[in-house]
């Protein structure tokens, strides 16, 4: 018996969650009158557009509001990016609003860090404290002594704007704990990060992407649609995920060997001349060097590395090429896997280039123009600042505007190359998302001041000096945001409050505006959100009315193929199969496969891999009352044969240990995972006293070792081996 929901359960969940959501709202003390409503009556609700905030996808929704209380969230049918869908998490968004454990007032720490003793303070006092501490840090350590980290949120752009005006280069987002390796690889190969046009594809290789559970709109829905129409989807994953279950074929690849598979695909495609010869000749550079590089990377060789039969690899290569250009190696999103993840993802990019699928239906398309104007400003320059980011020297190709959280954390702990003593965190939660939690704790201990602005008392907030309560996405006015949706074009959304802000919550924009005044740079926030939006939409005079009418605006989208003949944004102006930049920097100019290193310790025989359930968005959703009914705790996926050897039976408590830390959780004994691999969900085993539901299970970040991508500094979270034993066993 598994605690994971079946597909049918998942499809049913939307309805169930919506009903429960209404019940949650009705039970909220805020709406005693709602209890009296007779169930047979037609709902007397108002319908208001909103944008979901339960993950980064930001799907359009319609909130059904009755007497100031949100009763239900429905998908916005005009929001085509989600194909008119609102997932289980989206439906459960109501609980985020009415969660009794939500932050209600600013809180000032009175006990030791992480002890959970707080004093409620008013906003005036909270802002005064915050400004004062930031001013002190700037005076003592330069302005780069403040670090700013903002999560994937529509108002995060204001945090970055504030950091720049304040004068700090030290800004991180969630990206260096997630997707940077893939971005690095595609920027260095194609000159930009493309979008997959899944909807029109006939053949998709999902290598490590579990798109039917780790939902990305519209890709997740489109995969289901195209399979119905006969497209082939090949899944490579050490785990039998729901994507694997529904795919045309699944291969339980040996973890860390995806590049061997990609090089073998390239070998077959080149050796049998299955590539698009005209495209490759005109628009790529380095085919001769790539040919030599993959000459011995035969399917037979790759079989030895990946465990996938050579005949299957050769067949997949031929099928993929035959379906081209409506075929792709799906680029994926989270690529924070291995220390050589940039090179692994270069392998993905190179196979796509051979298929000639650039800017073609069913292939990879350049980001669609969105037309949102930036709102310029003129931040001051501080001559006494250090020359660069605190993590600048850690890796050769850091993205300057993203940095590396893992390397930044090391620098803060060391106090070198210069001290960083303050941290402003907005709606991101590194205590629950960055590997090796004890190091994040150590980093926080090294600070003079940590302020966390969030909706809930996250684990990071729990460690803070000052906690600021934020409104949920249904309670605030937000700037315009462009969302990409494959080949169909970008869409623009904004938010207006569906209900008035609850408790004493105040949007981060207002917090930053107030702080900018206290810190002497009010001109950086010399606007309100309405005027900011007007400036953002300057190119589209009709957009505001359409956004009010439909909840979404679609800017003009050029047809595919308009980039034909144009140079790529790379040094050679072509797709760089062979990277001259890498060669000049002493990096491998072609992706060199390395056999994954075995566990250094025979006692730690299992590679720990991360992944997602469709009901979990890491630690931001595991405390949600509705979603926790579907994922009440995490379990350790353990192969049935391995379990037998260890004497572990279904549901037994197991102790999992790595050099980073340890955890205890129930075993899910299953044939759905390789014998050498274990898996657990993130987001459980939390430490915050105000996240009571998610304190169960084990914390994956307690177990993961801190490793990083050697090229871009992205976190590398599949490099950890763990030991597993039944609790109480010797």
């Amino acid at each position, binding site marked *: 018996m598994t605690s994971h929901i079946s597909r049918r359960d998942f499809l049913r969940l939307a309805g169930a969650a919506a009903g429960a959501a209404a019940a949650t709202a009705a039970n909220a003390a805020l709406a005693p009158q709602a209890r009296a409503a007779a169930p047979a009556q037609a709902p007397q609700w108002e319908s208001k557009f909103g944008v979901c905030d339960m993950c980064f996808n930001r799907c359009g929704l319609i909130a059904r509001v009755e007497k100031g209380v949100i009763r239900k969230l429905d998908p916005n049918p005009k929001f085509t990016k989600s194909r008119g869908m609102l997932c289980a998490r989206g439906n459960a968004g109501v609980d985020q609003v009415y969660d009794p454990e939500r932050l209600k007032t600013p809180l000032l720490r009175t006990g030791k860090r992480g002890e959970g003793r707080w004093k409620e303070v008013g906003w005036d006092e909270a802002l005064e404290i915050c400004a004062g501490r930031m001013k002190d840090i700037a005076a003592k350590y330069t302005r780069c002594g403040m670090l700013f980290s903002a999560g994937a949120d529509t108002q995060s752009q204001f945090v970055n704007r504030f950091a720049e005006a304040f004068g700090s280069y030290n800004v991180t987002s969630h990206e260096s704990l997630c997707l940077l390796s893939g971005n690095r690889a595609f920027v260095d190969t194609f*000159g930009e990060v493309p979008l997959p046009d899944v909807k029109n594809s006939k053949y998709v290789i999902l290598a490590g992407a579990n798109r039917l559970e780790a939902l990305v709109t519209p890709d997740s829905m489109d995969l289901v649609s195209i399979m119905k129409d006969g497209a082939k989807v090949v899944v490579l994953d050490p785990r039998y995920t729901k994507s694997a279950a529904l795919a045309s074929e699944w291969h339980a690849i040996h973890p860390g060997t995806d590049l061997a598979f990609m090089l073998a695909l390239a070998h077959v495609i080149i050796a049998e001349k299955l590539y698009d010869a005209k495209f490759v000749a005109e628009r790529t550079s380095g085919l001769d060097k790539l040919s030599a590089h993959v000459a011995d990377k035969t399917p037979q060789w790759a079989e030895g590395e990946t465990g996938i039969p050579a005949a299957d690899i050769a067949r997949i290569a031929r099928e993929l090429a035959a379906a081209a250009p409506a075929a792709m190696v799906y680029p994926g999103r989270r690529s924070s896997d291995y220390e050589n993840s940039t090179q692994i993802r270069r392998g993905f990019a190179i196979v796509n280039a051979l298929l000639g699928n650039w800017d073609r239906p069913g292939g990879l398309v350049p980001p669609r123009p969105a037309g949102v104007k*930036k709102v*310029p400003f003129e931040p001051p320059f501080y001559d006494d600042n250090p020359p660069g980011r605190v993590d600048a020297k850690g890796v050769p190709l850091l993205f300057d505007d993203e940095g590396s959280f893992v390397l930044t954390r090391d620098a803060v702990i060391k106090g070198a190359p210069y001290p960083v003593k303050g941290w402003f965190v907005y709606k991101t939660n590194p205590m629950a998302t960055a590997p090796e939690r004890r190091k994040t704790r150590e980093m926080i201990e090294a600070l003079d001041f940590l302020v966390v602005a969030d909706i809930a008392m996250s684990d990071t907030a729990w460690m803070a000096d000052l906690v600021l309560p934020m409104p949920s996405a249904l309670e605030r006015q937000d700037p315009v945001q462009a969302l990409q949706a494959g080949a169909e074009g970008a869409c623009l959304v904004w938010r207006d409050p569906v209900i008035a802000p609850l408790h004493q919550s105040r949007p981060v924009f207002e917090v930053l505006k107030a702080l900018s005044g206290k810190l002497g740079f009010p001109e950086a926030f010399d606007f309100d959100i309405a005027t900011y939006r007007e400036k953002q939409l300057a190119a589209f005079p009709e957009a505001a009315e359409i956004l009010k009418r439909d909840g979404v605006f679609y800017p003009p989208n050029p047809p595919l193929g308009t980039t034909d003949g144009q140079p790529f944004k790379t040094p050679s102006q072509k797709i760089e199969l062979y990277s001259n930049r890498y060669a000049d920097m002493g990096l491998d100019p072609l992706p060199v496969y390395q056999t994954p290193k075995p566990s250094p310790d025979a006692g730690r025989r299992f590679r720990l891999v991360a992944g997602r359930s469709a009901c979990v968005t890491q630690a931001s959703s595991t405390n949600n009352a509705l979603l926790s009914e579907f994922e009440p705790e995490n379990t350790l996926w353990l192969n049935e044969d391995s379990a037998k050897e260890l004497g572990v039976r279904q549901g037994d408590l197991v102790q999992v240990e790595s050099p980073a830390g340890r955890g205890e959780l129930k075993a899910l004994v299953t044939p759905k995972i390789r014998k050498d691999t274990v898996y657990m969900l993130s987001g459980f085993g939390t430490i915050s006293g105000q996240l009571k539901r998610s304190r169960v299970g084990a914390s994956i970040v307690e177990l993961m070792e801190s490793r990083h991508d050697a090229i871009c500094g992205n976190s590398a979270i599949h490099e950890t081996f763990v030991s597993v034993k039944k609790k109480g066993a010797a």
Partner: protein
Amino acid sequence: MKRSTSIFAAIVLAIATVGMAFAAEGNARKGKYLYRQKCRSCHGVSASDLSPNSKTQAEWKKLFAKPEAIKCYKDWKGVTPEEKTDIFTYLHDFAKDSPSPAKCN
């Protein structure tokens, strides 16, 4: 002594060259500030909406090799040679084919 100093300098230069393989020699961060102060008063308002990713690194290099040939050069009064280098460094290091292309303007 003199010789060892020059060898040391050569090594430092070599390391710096490798580490900054694609960075120009000025201060890109100061360049960004100066660019906003001195260039965006026209560009994006009355002149073309320029950003580092409007051009390639090679194009910026070519342009700044002979700045006096740039159309608006006459308006560059008061921009010191050092400031010019900083502005160039910013535009070059965040060019559209750079490792860290600027996001829009």
